[in-house]
């Protein structure tokens, strides 16, 4: 009897110790979540309805920031074109996602030099973005024009791809697509690696072609990953700054601004933090627009998920 009581008591002590241990372990991340997520976001929402007074104090209860924002949306090219540019960047990133899926499939099938491509395509994602951007700038604004000027002697001489008005936007878009492939390839490859070999073998015994294998076996199996990419990139629809700051600092041409870039530049150039409430208002507006879009997209992706349909 005593033995049973002792066993129970030592189990209770162990459970209590475990509880203390896990509480302590979780305390730090929970505190971090409360401060850096809940408090920060709540404060940002409040800020949208505040204004800085000339003496640096804050006054609550104003819609001035939204009035100015809507006026700017009519008159300011950065904001006016920014919506279109942001949307365009998203559409292009979605349209370019098949490239990542197809490359992943190629590597998954272990075709010629697949490991080499895996390393080469993923390298830009692990190297510091500043290094990659500098290399890309050197290539686009120095190497390519120098090469063309040297070989073909165009007159007037060709300037950099990131300098000439007509090539800036395509070059930035190209960079975005190229740099975005590394992560998507890694994710899709991981998803493809989880496909049961016997499913593929069964399809092959039935005489399936590689194209049909990709479309009707592999893609449905990686659909959840595709869905995550699709939905998560929607969340950054209006905050994506298209690497403009990395290339041009705070002075990218207004006609190429995205909303994300405009918001970022507005913040860092806000020399007296007087613009913080204005930026908070823009952030809130972005959330109001993006949230339903993301939720609908998530619902739609769940609906059309071929694996769920089964």
């Amino acid at each position, binding site marked *: 009897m005593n033995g049973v009581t002792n066993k129970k008591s030592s189990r209770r002590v162990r459970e209590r110790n475990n509880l203390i241990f896990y509480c302590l372990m979780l305390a730090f991340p929970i505190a971090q979540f409360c401060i850096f997520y809940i408090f920060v976001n709540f404060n940002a929402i409040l800020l949208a309805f505040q204004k800085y007074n000339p003496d640096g104090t804050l006054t609550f209860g104003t819609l001035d920031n939204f009035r100015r924002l809507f006026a700017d949306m009519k008159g300011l090219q950065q904001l006016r074109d920014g919506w279109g540019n942001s949307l365009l960047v998203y559409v292009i990133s979605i349209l370019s996602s098949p490239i990542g899926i197809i490359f992943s499939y190629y590597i998954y099938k272990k075709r010629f030099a697949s490991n080499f491509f895996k390393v080469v395509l993923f390298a830009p994602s692990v190297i510091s973005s500043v290094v990659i951007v500098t290399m890309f700038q050197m290539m686009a604004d120095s190497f390519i024009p120098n090469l063309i000027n040297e070989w073909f002697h165009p*007159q007037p001489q060709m300037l950099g791809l990131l300098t000439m008005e007509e090539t800036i936007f395509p070059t930035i878009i190209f960079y975005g697509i190229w740099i975005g492939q590394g992560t998507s390839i890694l994710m899709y490859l991981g998803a493809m690696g989880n496909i049961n070999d016997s499913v593929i073998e069964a399809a092959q015994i039935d005489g399936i072609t590689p194209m049909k294998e990709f479309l009707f076996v592999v893609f449905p199996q990686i659909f959840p990953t595709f869905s995550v990419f699709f939905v998560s990139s929607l969340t950054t629809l209006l905050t994506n700054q298209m690497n403009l700051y990395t290339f041009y600092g705070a002075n990218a041409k207004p006609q190429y601004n995205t909303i994300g870039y405009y918001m970022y530049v507005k913040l860092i150039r806000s020399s*007296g933090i007087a613009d913080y409430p204005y930026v908070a208002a823009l952030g809130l507006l972005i959330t109001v627009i993006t949230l339903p879009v993301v939720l609908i997209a998530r619902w739609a992706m769940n609906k059309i998920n071929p694996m769920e349909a089964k």
Partner: protein
Amino acid sequence: MKKQLFKTMALALCLTAGMSAFASCGAVERPDSQEEVDVTKTQLNVGVWEGGFRYNWLKEDWAKEFERLHAETVFEEGKKGVQVNVTPSKNYALENVPTVIKGSTDHVIISEQTNTFGFVRENSALDITDILTTPLTEYGETRSIVDKMRETDRAFYGGLKGATSEADYQYVALPWYASFFGINYDVELFEDNNYYFAAEGTGVNGFVTSLDAPKSNGPDGKPNTSDDGLPATFDDFFKLCDKMVQDGVTPMVWTGAVKDYMNYFTASLANDVVGFEQAQLNYTLDGTVADTLVESIDANGNITYMDPVAITNENGYLMQKQEGRYYAFKFLEKLLTTRDEKGNTVYINEADCTSTTGGHMAVQTKFLESRNKSQDNPNVKPIAMLAEGSWWYNEAKPTFDSNASIPGMGMNERRIGFMPMPKPTADYAGEATYTNTWITNIVINANTPASSLAAAKQFVRFIHTDWALSRFTTVANGIRPFDYQLTEEDAANASYFAKQALDIYQNSDIVNPWSSNPLVYNNLASFVGNYDSKAGGSTHTTVVEGLASLAKTSATPALDYFNGLSAYWTESNWNTTFATYLEN
């Protein structure tokens, strides 16, 4: 066993995360403080922006001399003397400095590109009015620090707490260096090629034939001054450029990577055209603007002026019509759009001036090395002028050092001068007006412990003695915005650039593109180097790119850009943007 393993792993992760958190809350890293702490001395920590000026002047000159002079001073009970620990930091620039210093253990902080009002708002810097207004008698001087400051600096740094009269000024900060922007020129190249204008009725094609020949009066219109022989008007400037092009010299270069720079250049040029008093109104929005506001400009460039207007916060948008802007755009238009028969720019190397690669230091190197390299390589052209700020010379120290073995290429051997801006026409001849680029600050951290406070205050006083000011100019090739001259010893050792820049500072008007007007200091990005313009169906934010873009479709890009300023800053936009600061 398995459970135990995961528990151990979880514990290790928690410890790692915790350590990272504590590390980030701790003291600012002190990479350069290699000296052992002498516990018998008061410890004074000085943090400085780790930028182009570096910090050898602070560590080797200011700190060492301060320690020597105060070896016997008791700054805190039980200790004698002071040990100055210098820390260069990338944290001490831009807008976060007033917040960042709250977590710093540095007592004196030297920073740049930070809005001084931030220190007032965050209450992160001590009020130092007393140490600024007391004469520096302990160092054998009769003037106080405030006595050495310019009126505009006193009004700004002293007026941020709302004081409007000098007697009430309260200071939390001091300026670190003058940051005027303009044209730097290779004096040796100018001398070797006689690129100076001859006195009227002498010379060949308007230029001197030898350095001894009498020179023209220069932009100030006065004989026997430092600008003699330099281009007085825009026409002179481009005549000089044409001569350079004929000689196979590239007249001018600037960095395309830092897009703001040529906006600062525009501000310097525009303010020089209208002069100090009228230029300052752009940033104080308080006073009567004379006949410098443009009503209209006809096809031939003739200007009709508005009647004088009293400028206030309510009608500040009218300053966009100031003629200086138009003339600055005209100047840049010609520099940018004059092309040869093949369509290539004549006065600048367009690739250098537009490329996003390399950055400003690469262009400095190109400018400095071009003359020497052109002697061996026919594909390299010497470059005569560089558009840069008054801080660039020390920034280019690595280039000077790497060329030091070449005779005449060392930092103190080269002769690079600062050229006064040419005027639109001879009618505008007069003293040059320069324009600062950004705000700099020296503050005492509000969290300085009592044990180091006396030393911190004394240090701030010391670094404004004539000796310390002179050393900064000699060692860092920069200008402290105070009234001082080089000591005899420093005058013998300082670079040509430093001496000339100091001469300019001491004898010219310098515009601060900021003021203690809350509308301005809370919205600096709308005033300092801001040339937002709506023209040709687009908004333009950088003058050079805007003019180049407009030139593709318009015969009058400068005029379009100028009119676009008022199209951008309409009364309605002004009222919406600055509603908080307007009376109605």
